[in-house]
C-alpha cells in the first residue's frame, strides 16, 4: 500500500479535522479576547481567566461536579467490572443474552429517557433529590460503558492463567487478584477515566435528577448561556477542554500500551529460534 497520503486523503483529513476542531479552536482563541463583546476581537488578554478565578461564581459548581464525577466513576467501575465478570465467567444462566443486551442498551438509549426514567423512579420512591441522586444516575449510565470496555478485555483473557494461579496454591479470590486483575487493570483504568469524563460533562441526566442546592458546572454554564454568552464562559470551557483532553489521552495511551503488549506477546519470534540457542 502507498504509505503517502493521496490528495483525496489529505483533503478529507483536513476537512474532517476542521469540522471537528475549528469551533473549539475559535472558542479557545476568543477566551483570550479582551472585549466584552463575545464576537468582536479587540486584543489578547487573560482578563476573563482572572475574572473566573476571582469571581467564585463557578467554584461551587466545579467542586460539586468533581465530587460527583469521582464518586460515580468509582462506583461505576466497581459495578461495571462485576457485570463483566458475570458476562464472561457465567457462560450459562437463564436470560443471559437478555442480560448482556440490557447492559449495552443504555449506551444507545437517549439520555432524556434515562434521565426521565430515573426522575420518575426517585419521585415514586420518595427519595429527596440532590447530591446522592445525581451520583446514582451517573453511576447507572457510566457503568454500562465500563462493562463494555472491560468485557472486551476479559473476553480475550486466557482463563487458564487464573487456573494456573489456583494450581500454584492460590484460593479463588487470591487467584483473581494475582492473575486476572493485573491483566485487565489497564482496561479498568481506561474505563474509569471514561466514566469520569462522561460524568464530568453530563447535563441532561443531571438536570433531571438533581435537587435544590446542587448545581453542577455544565448546569451553571447552560443557565448562564440562556441569558447571553459571557466571555468568561469561553475561558471556563477552555479549561474544561484541557482537563477532558488530558483524561482522554491518558485513557487512550493506557489502552494502546496494553494492546501493544498483547500484540508483542502474540508476534514474538517463532519457537524455532530457540533451536539455535539450545
Amino acid at each position: 500500500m502507498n504509505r503517502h497520503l493521496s490528495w483525496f486523503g489529505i483533503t478529507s483529513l483536513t476537512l474532517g479535522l476542521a469540522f471537528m476542531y475549528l469551533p473549539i479552536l475559535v472558542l479557545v482563541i476568543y477566551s483570550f479576547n479582551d472585549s466584552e463583546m463575545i464576537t468582536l476581537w479587540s486584543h489578547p488578554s487573560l482578563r476573563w481567566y482572572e475574572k473566573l478565578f476571582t469571581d467564585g461564581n463557578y467554584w461551587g459548581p466545579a467542586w460539586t461536579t468533581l465530587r460527583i464525577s469521582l464518586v460515580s466513576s468509582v462506583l461505576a467501575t466497581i459495578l461495571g467490572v462485576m457485570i463483566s465478570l458475570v458476562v464472561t465467567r457465567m457462560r450459562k444462566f437463564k436470560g443471559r443474552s437478555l442480560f448482556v443486551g440490557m447492559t449495552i442498551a443504555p449506551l444507545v438509549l437517549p439520555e432524556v429517557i434515562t434521565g426521565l426514567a430515573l426522575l420518575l423512579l426517585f419521585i415514586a420512591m420518595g427519595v429527596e433529590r440532590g447530591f446522592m441522586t445525581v451520583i446514582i444516575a451517573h453511576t447507572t449510565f457510566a457503568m454500562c460503558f465500563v462493562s463494555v470496555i472491560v468485557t472486551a478485555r476479559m473476553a480475550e483473557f486466557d482463563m487458564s492463567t487464573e487456573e494456573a494461579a489456583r494450581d500454584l496454591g492460590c484460593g479463588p479470590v487470591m487467584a483473581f487478584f494475582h492473575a486476572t486483575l493485573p491483566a485487565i487493570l489497564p482496561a479498568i483504568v481506561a474505563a474509569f477515566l471514561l466514566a469520569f469524563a462522561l460524568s464530568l460533562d453530563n447535563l441532561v441526566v443531571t438536570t433531571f435528577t438533581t435537587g435544590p442546592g446542587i448545581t453542577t458546572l455544565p448546569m451553571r454554564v447552560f443557565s448562564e448561556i440562556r441569558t447571553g454568552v459571557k466571555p468568561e464562559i469561553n475561558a471556563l470551557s477552555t479549561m474544561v477542554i484541557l482537563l477532558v483532553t488530558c483524561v482522554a489521552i491518558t485513557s487512550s495511551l493506557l489502552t494502546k500500551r496494553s494492546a501493544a503488549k498483547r500484540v508483542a506477546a502474540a508476534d514474538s519470534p517463532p519457537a524455532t529460534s530457540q533451536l539455535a540457542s539450545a
Partner: protein
Amino acid sequence: MLALSEAPAVGSETSTPWTNAQATPLVEIRSVSKQYGDFTAIGDLSLKIYPGEFFALLGPSGCGKSTLLRMLAGFETPTAGEILLNGEDMVPMPPEKRPVNMMFQSYALFPHLTLEQNIAFGLKRMKLPKGEIDSRVEEMLQLVQMTTQAKRKPHQISGGQRQRIALARSLARRPKMLLLDEPMGALDKKLRRETQLELMDIQHRLGTTFVIVTHDQEEAMTVASRIAIMDHGKLMQVAPPIDTYETPASRYVAEFVGDTNIFTGSVTAAGSSALDFTLEVSGQSLNALPQPGIAAPDARYLNVRPEKMAVSKDRVDDGSNYLRGRIDEVAYLGNLSTYYVDVGLDQRVLVQMTNSQRFGSERFAEDDNVWVSWYPQDGQLLDR
C-alpha cells in the same frame, strides 16, 4: 541439585509395576464418571497410575482425556467415583491444596511477572523462606536451561522458551504428579521432537510421575511408559506403546494407533497351532495363528500392519498369505514407499515397503499386477 530421594528406584523389577498386583499405585481412579447434562464426558472409568510412570492419555478430541486430566488437577469434579492419591480421596480437595501441578496447553504464564517471578509464584504461596525460594528458582532455571533469561517477561521470549518456563513453574513446587495438557501443541514439528526427548530426560532425572494428554499418537508412543487410549469417555486399552501397536485390544485401537489393514471374516478351521480365516467378501482362506484371549469362533477381524506386508511380482511358496491384486496408487515418501493395492475386496490394501537401497530396491508402478503377502504370525485376530 534436585532432591532425588523421592524418586522411586528404577530397576528391572519395578519398571513395569502394572504387571505386579502387589504394587501400590500413586493414583487410583475408581469408577469415575462425569456428566454434563445428558452428555457423558467420562463413563465409569477406573485406572491406576504408578509412581515414576510417564503416563499418556491418548484419544481424538472430545474423548474425555482433558476432562480426566482436569479432574486430577481439581478443576472438574467427578459426578461419581473416587480419585485416590496415595490412598487419600482427592475429590473434595480444591486445586490449590492438591500435591499435583499442571502445565497448561496455553502455558498460562503470568504476563506481568518476569520469568523468575513466574517460577517463584507457587513457592511464595507455600510460604517458604526467601533463600529457599531463590535456590529452587535457580534450580528450575538450570533444569530447563533458561538461567540467562530470568529477568525477562513472557512476551519477550519465544514459544519454545515459554514452554520451558511453564514446565519449570509447574515443577518448582515438587509435585507428586505433573499433569501436562497437550504441552507441545503449539510447537513446530522439529522442535516438538526435541522437546519430547528433553521432557523424557527431565522426567527420568526427577522421577516425578508425569501424566500427559495428547492427540498425537507418535508423541504418546515416544514419551510414555504406558498409554491409555480413550474414546467417548471410556478406556479402550491401557498398555505400553509396543502392545498398543503390535497387540491392539480392538479394531478401534488398531486403527487409531498407526495405519492398518482390517479384513473381516471368520475362523472356519481351527487347529492347535494354525487357523483358517475365511474372508467374508471373497470366501478366500487365509492362514492365521490363534490369538491368546480370543476364542477362535469369536474372531471377526484379521489385523495386518502395512509394514508387515510385502508387494512382489512372483509368488513364492513359503507359507505366507498371498492376495493377488493390481496397484492402484503409489506414494513415494523417500524412506518408504506406500502402495495402495486393489485385491478385489471391498477395500484397498495398504502396503509399506522400506526403500533400503538407493536404486536396488524393487519398485512398482500403478496398474502393475502384483502379489501382496505376509507371514501368518504377522496377522492378528480380533474379536471386536
